């Protein structure tokens, strides 16, 4: 029933009584930071005209309904010398581990989503959201296949006057390695382990779509609903997000340099092999 903190010599993150992330102290700053999951209900139409298009494999098209998960999260706290983690259970099909390793300068979020329920006959597109106090003024940054970083401005295109009919999907961009927001003082970056759609729909907020299950074809060619199953149930997806947070002016190496190192480490990971060594003594193996 109390607030609690996990962390290491580089950073600390605190959780409020309801089990949700509440603040972060890292790399020279202390700031409000909240993270939660939400979902959009997929639009449903007969595809006879543009405004009746359903959300499907090719397009993300929410019907305007956005739902959040309960504010009370079941938690378990594990603390040790190498890693401290918080296991959060949001509901029967969404859970997460928030983790800080002793020698890492970032927070790891290992999410698990699915099988997405469809008994209500409604398709759902699940997102994770990070809320901070950063005054990002509509600007956010996404990568382009890990090459340059592209500046995105909410509800804006550089070469024409934009009037967005779809305020959410119209601000979504591909994120293949990272998405970031910043102001003069603070920068927050989320690195992902696979290509996802992402956006910043409000100042200080980063959002990434992590799983979707839809019940209608969007009539762009696949002629199937995006409704995958395994073992007779909807797919379960598990993945990682890595949060780098701190003051813009930090010590060497800079925050952006740290992001680049982490990016390479996560996208070109070590190969792990295991070998049975029951028949060997250590000295023999050595």
């Amino acid at each position, binding site marked *: 029933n109390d607030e609690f903190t996990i962390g290491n010599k580089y950073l600390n993150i605190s959780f409020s009584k309801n089990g949700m992330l509440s603040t972060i102290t890292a790399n020279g700053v202390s700031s409000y930071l909240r993270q939660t999951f939400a979902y959009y209900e997929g639009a449903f139409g007969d595809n006879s005209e543009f405004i009746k298009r359903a959300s499907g*494999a*090719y397009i993300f098209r929410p019907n305007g309904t956005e739902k959040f998960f309960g504010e009370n999260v079941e938690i*378990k706290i*594990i603390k*040790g*010398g*190498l*890693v401290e*983690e918080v*296991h959060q*259970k949001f509901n029967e099909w969404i*859970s997460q*581990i928030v983790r800080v*390793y*002793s*020698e*890492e300068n970032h927070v790891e979020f290992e999410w*698990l989503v699915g099988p997405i329920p469809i008994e209500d006959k409604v398709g759902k597109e699940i997102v994770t959201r990070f809320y901070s106090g950063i005054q990002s003024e509509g600007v956010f940054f996404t990568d382009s296949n890990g090459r340059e970083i592209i500046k995105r401005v909410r509800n804006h295109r550089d070469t024409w006057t934009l009037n967005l009919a779809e305020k959410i999907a119209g601000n979504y961009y591909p994120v293949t390695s990272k998405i970031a927001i910043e102001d003069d003082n603070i920068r927050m970056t989320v690195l992902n382990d696979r290509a996802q759609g992402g956006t910043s729909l409000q100042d200080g907020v980063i959002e990434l779509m992590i799983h979707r299950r839809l019940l209608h074809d969007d009539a*762009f*060619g*696949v*002629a*199937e609903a*995006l409704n*995958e199953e*395994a*073992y007779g*149930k909807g797919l*379960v997806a*598990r993945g990682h997000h890595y949060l780098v947070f701190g003051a813009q002016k930090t010590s060497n190496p800079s925050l952006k340099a740290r992001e680049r190192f982490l990016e*390479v*480490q996560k996208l*070109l*990971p*070590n*190969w*792990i*092999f*295991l*070998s*049975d*060594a*029951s*028949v*060997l*003594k*250590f000295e*023999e*193996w*050595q």
Partner: protein
Amino acid sequence: EPHLTALREVMGVMQHHDAVTGTEKQHVAEDYARRLTIAIRACSVTTKDVLNQLINPDSKDELHSVSKRNPKFHPHGAYKAKNYTFNYKSCNYLNISQCDISETSSQFVVTLYNPLAHSGYQYVRLPILGEKYIVKDYKGVEVVSQIVPIAESILNLPFRQSNTTHELVFLANELPPLGYKSFFITKLMESFDDFFGAEAREPSVIQLDEPVYYE
């Protein structure tokens, strides 16, 4: 070369825009997964050979013949490194905290190959069944480890086939650029059952058709 080409060819197929974006039909998605799995499995033969070659450069010329042999030991139990090849296996279910070797072996070796051009590190997480483990690096220096519970939501996954409830965590550091580092992990036996197996408690009759030698 044919093993590598199998994966090259499948990666060629995967350049199709439907494979990149996930807009293929479901049975095509399943076929892509099938092709990739087969090709990756084929490449693991090459990986195993190359790692054995890195570990034992003297055996380079006779690599293929050596890798097909069984491990051989000196009559007095001494280890003949030159003739021994490790069977390096990938645990494809580590993402659901499931791995046959780390769960069932009393001793096993974890090898990390660093594909980057600068040194690296990684916190290794392996599902385990025991309560105490010792992790040593190649110098015999014990590496600090921690055992953490696996999240309940993972344990409850309907398709997960594992009895493990915990993971062993340790820091594999100073991984050399474009090189490997191995760690030797021993499960500490605490009870009679751990050491001999529960079935050893049951009295049994042994038919001695041939002389039995004890080591």
